[in-house]
């Protein structure tokens, strides 16, 4: 059944080839954009997965629970924020990490804060944003996003509910097994 999962990307490749046949220039542009996204992916995603594997094998659950778990309070919130902000790479890189966090007993709202911080307050990207759009733009966006991420984490946790959260954590644990 493994090969079946590759039907979708092969179909997509066929569409791109068809566009190539119709309009060579558009096809070329499309491939060059795909190429640069692919390079971005390779520049961070493989080491992230290896770090995750190492974290899963070496760091015991109790240690993570202590710093990021149910009882971790403000320290856990700040740490989740910093971990997300220190990241680089596209948002989909955050999801596998979130899964291992859930498996290791990280508080659910902290997982959401981590994902939120990863999505929009990444420190390396912030430097780049300042350079392109100016300090005013970047700082104001950051100032609005920090409380926004916390608020969204609380809202999402409420909406999802305890039962669904448990189901999601169980599912996440089975993925990263």
């Amino acid at each position: 059944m493994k090969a079946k999962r590759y039907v979708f990307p092969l179909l997509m490749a066929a569409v791109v080839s068809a566009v190539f046949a119709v309009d060579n220039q558009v096809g070329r542009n499309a491939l060059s954009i795909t190429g640069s996204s692919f390079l971005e992916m390779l520049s961070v995603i493989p080491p992230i997965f290896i770090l995750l594997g190492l974290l899963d094998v070496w760091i015991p659950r109790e240690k993570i629970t202590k710093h990021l778990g149910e009882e971790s309070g403000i320290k856990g919130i700040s740490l989740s924020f910093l971990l997300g902000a220190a990241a680089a790479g596209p948002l989909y890189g955050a999801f596998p990490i979130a899964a291992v966090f859930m498996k290791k007993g990280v508080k659910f709202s902290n997982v959401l804060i981590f994902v939120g911080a990863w999505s929009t307050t990444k420190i390396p990207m912030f430097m780049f944003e300042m350079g392109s759009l100016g300090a005013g733009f970047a700082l104001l966006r950051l100032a609005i996003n920090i409380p926004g991420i916390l608020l969204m984490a609380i809202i999402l946790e409420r909406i999802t509910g305890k039962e669904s959260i448990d189901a999601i954590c169980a599912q996440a644990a089975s993925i990263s097994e």
Partner: protein
Amino acid sequence: MTVYSIVIYFITGSLLVISLIASRKKTLMALEKAWRSFEGILPELIAILLFVGLLIALLNPETISQLLGESSGVWGLLIASVVGSITLIPGFVAFPTAAMLLNNGAGITQIALFISTLMMVGVVTFPVEKKYFGTKLTIVRNVVAFGFSFIVAGLMGVVLG
């Protein structure tokens, strides 16, 4: 980006060596897990990257600048948020692009909305996110992030506009 990537590869490599010295068995286990998780999202990832490349190649920058102009109103906001939500553009491409669009006459609220939805909302990455968060939370997270992006853009438009 490249510096960061060198740093992360270097750290990963060093930790891997330390792990290998400490326990060969555990290190192999870690690598096996790493590969399995990576392979788990690879097919979706390839399809997504191909799709986004095509989408962006079909949109041209002059048209976008016009559509997102200062006076483009509700339509401009709608387009900015939809394009930002659907596409997946690396930050080091997105920020210079946004700066270029601003110079070509796009409005600050529209650009802030585009940047914010681009980073927080992921329509094309839905199949990947769903695997980890389930369908319900994935939908809710994206909808909430979409709404929040309008707040960010509104505030930024008022302060900087």
